[in-house]
C-alpha cells in the first residue's frame, strides 16, 4: 500500500477509480473542480470514460443511463449543482440504480459563496428530491477517510441498489493529507440482471426495463413499501460512528466532517481544564447513529451540537434524545468556520449550566 500526499478531492477521485468506477459525468463548480479535472486525466489511463456534461442536469441523467446499463458510475458537484441534480437523483432512487454522488459543500443559499459549509445536511439526509426516500450519506473527516468512504460508497450502492452520497465540506476537498491508497479497494459487485445491456439471451432473464413509473397507485404503494423496507435494512446494517472520551462524559459534543476535528481539539483542551466532555462523530449521517446518542445520554447531562450551518444535524440529535437531555448548538454560516477557541468557550458555557 502506497502512502500518497493528496488533496481530498483528488483522493476521492483516485479512490473511486481504485474501487472500479469507470464512468464519470460532471460539470465544473468550486470547490470540487479537482474531482472532474483529476478524472479527465485518469479515466483514459484506465480505459474509463470521463465526460464533461452540458449541465448538472445532464450529468446526473448520464449517470442514470450508465448505472442502468450496469456500470460503476459517479458524479460530483457542490450546492447549486447538487440542487440541479435532485431531479435525476429521485429518478435514480425510483428506478433503484446504484451510483455514487459527491457533494463538496459550499455556503448557500443561492450562489452563496465558495467557502466550506455544512448547510446541505437537510437536503442530503431528507432525500432532497420529490418522493419518499432516503439514501446513505457518508461524511468523511479526513482525506484518508474521504478515500475509504468513497470506495465503500460503491459497494453500498451496488448492495442496496441505491445512490450513495459522499458529503464533504470545502475543507475536506481542498486540504492535503497523507492517504494509504491500496492498488485496488476490495469490491463486491453483484450480478445485475436488471441492467440494459441488450436482450441477447432471452432464456437467461426477462426483458430489462429501467423505470420509475408505476401508474397504478396500488403498485406504486407496493414499490414504496419495498423501498422503505430497504431503508429499514440499511439503517439496521450500515450505521457508522466514531466516539471519543464519551464513557465518563457529562457533556457530549456532536459534530461531523471537518467540524468534528475542530470539536475534537476543543474537547481535548476542555479535558485539560478538567471538564468531562466527549465527542460523537457521525460518519453516516443517514442512517443517523441515534443509538449511540441515546447510549451517551446514560452518563451525559447535556449535548452540544457544532455545525457549519444554522443548525441542521441538531434536529437528528434531538429526535434521538426525544427530549431526554437538553441540546445546545453552536454554528457559523456562509463559509465561516468555528474556531477551536469559539467551541471551547461554548463547552465552558455548557459546563457552567450544569453546575
Amino acid at each position, binding site marked *: 500500500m502506497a502512502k500518497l500526499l493528496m488533496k481530498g478531492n483528488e483522493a476521492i477521485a483516485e479512490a473511486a477509480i481504485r474501487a472500479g468506477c469507470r464512468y464519470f459525468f460532471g460539470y465544473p463548480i468550486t470547490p470540487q473542480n479537482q474531482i472532474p479535472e483529476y478524472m479527465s486525466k485518469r479515466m483514459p489511463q484506465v480505459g474509463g470514460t470521463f465526460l464533461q456534461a452540458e449541465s448538472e442536469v445532464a450529468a446526473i*441523467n*448520464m*449517470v*442514470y*443511463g450508465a448505472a442502468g446499463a450496469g456500470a460503476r458510475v459517479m458524479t460530483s458537484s457542490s450546492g447549486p449543482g447538487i440542487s440541479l441534480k435532485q431531479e435525476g437523483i429521485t429518478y435514480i432512487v425510483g*428506478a433503484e440504480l446504484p451510483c455514487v454522488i459527491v457533494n463538496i459543500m459550499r455556503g448557500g443559499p443561492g450562489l452563496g459563496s465558495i467557502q466550506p459549509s455544512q448547510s446541505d445536511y437537510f437536503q442530503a439526509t431528507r432525500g432532497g428530491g420529490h418522493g419518499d426516500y432516503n439514501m446513505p450519506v457518508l461524511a468523511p473527516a479526513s482525506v484518508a477517510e474521504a478515500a475509504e468512504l468513497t470506495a465503500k460508497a460503491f459497494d453500498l450502492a451496488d448492495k442496496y441498489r441505491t445512490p450513495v452520497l459522499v458529503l464533504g465540506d470545502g475543507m475536506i476537498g481542498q486540504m492535503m493529507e497523507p492517504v494509504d491508497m491500496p492498488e485496488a479497494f476490495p469490491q463486491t459487485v453483484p450480478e445485475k440482471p436488471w441492467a440494459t445491456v441488450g436482450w441477447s439471451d432471452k432464456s437467461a432473464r426477462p426483458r430489462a426495463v429501467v423505470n420509475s413509473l408505476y401508474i397504478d397507485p396500488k403498485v406504486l404503494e407496493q414499490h414504496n413499501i419495498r423501498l422503505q423496507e430497504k431503508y429499514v435494512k440499511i439503517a439496521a446494517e450500515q450505521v457508522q460512528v466514531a466516539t471519543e472520551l464519551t464513557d465518563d462524559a457529562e457533556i457530549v459534543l456532536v459534530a461531523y466532517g471537518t467540524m468534528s476535528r475542530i470539536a475534537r481539539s476543543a474537547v481535548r483542551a476542555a479535558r485539560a481544564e478538567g471538564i468531562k466532555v466527549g465527542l460523537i462523530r457521525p460518519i453516516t449521517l443517514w442512517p443517523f447513529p441515534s443509538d449511540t446518542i441515546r447510549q451517551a445520554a446514560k452518563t451525559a447531562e447535556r449535548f452540544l451540537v457544532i455545525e457549519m450551518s444554522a443548525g441542521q444535524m441538531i434536529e437528528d440529535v434531538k429526535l434521538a434524545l426525544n427530549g431526554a437531555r437538553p441540546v445546545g448548538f453552536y454554528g457559523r454560516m456562509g463559509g465561516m468556520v468555528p474556531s477551536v477557541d469559539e467551541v471551547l468557550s461554548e463547552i465552558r458555557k455548557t459546563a457552567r449550566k450544569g453546575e
Partner: protein
Amino acid sequence: MAVVFEKTKALTDATLSYCPGCTHGIIHRLVAESIDELGVMEKSIGVAPVGCAVFAYDFFNIDMQQAAHGRAPAVATGIKRVHPNNVVFTYQGDGDLASIGMAEIVHAAARGEKITTIFVNNAIYGMTGGQMAPTTLVGQVTTTSPYGRNPELCGMPVRMAEMLGGLAGAAYVARVSVHNVRAVNEAKRAIKKAFELQIAGKGFTMVEVLSTCPTNWGMNPVEALGWVESNMIPYYPLGVFKDVSKDAVLASKDVSAKEAN
C-alpha cells in the same frame, strides 16, 4: 398458406396506449421494423420519454430505460458510453425534446453522440391535455393558447431538424411525415438510414416525424392527416438536412475536381 404480413418481432404483444388514429403507433412500427430488418434487436436499447410515449418501454421488445422529461438524450449518452457497440435510441415528443429537453438534445448532437433520436412532432403537448408546445403553429389554438399562438408573445415555432442539422456532430438529420402511404415509406427509409449510420459510427442521427394528435387537435383521424399536409408541412418542410454519407460522396467529388484542375 403464404405469409404476406407479419407482426414485427421488435414490438411486444402489449396493446398500444395511443388514442385511435394517433400516428405514434405507425412510428413505433417503423422503428421496430428498422431494428428488426437490421438484425440488431438483441443489441438495441431504447429510451422512453415523458409524454404519450412514456409507455414505449412496454411496447418495444428490447431492453429499455425510461428517462425524466427531456433528459432522454443524456440517459442515452450514459448507455452508449457504457455499451458503444449497442444500438441506442431515444423516442421523444416535441415538448420533451424541443422545450424542457432542448439543452440535452442540442448537446448530444453537438458531441456527435452515436445515438438515434426519433422526434415525434405533433405541434402540441399530448399527454398533459393539449397545451402549447414550442412547435405549435402560429394561430394554432391549444389549451394554453386559447386565442391562437401569438408570435408577439411566444415567438415563432422552433424548427428542430434545421437547427440540429447545422451542428457538426450531426451525421444524419431528416424530417419526414406519416400522413399517407408514400410518406410512411419515406419515413421508414429515413429511420432505417439513421440506424444504419449510427451502427456505422458516423455520429448523431435524428429523424423528426410529423405526427397527429387528433384528440387534442379536436379533429377526426382523417382530418388530422389532412392538417399535417395542409398546415404542418408548409412550415416544417420534409427533407434531409444533414447526411454525412452524401457529404462524403460530395467531398470525394470535390477532391477529384481539385485534382483534375
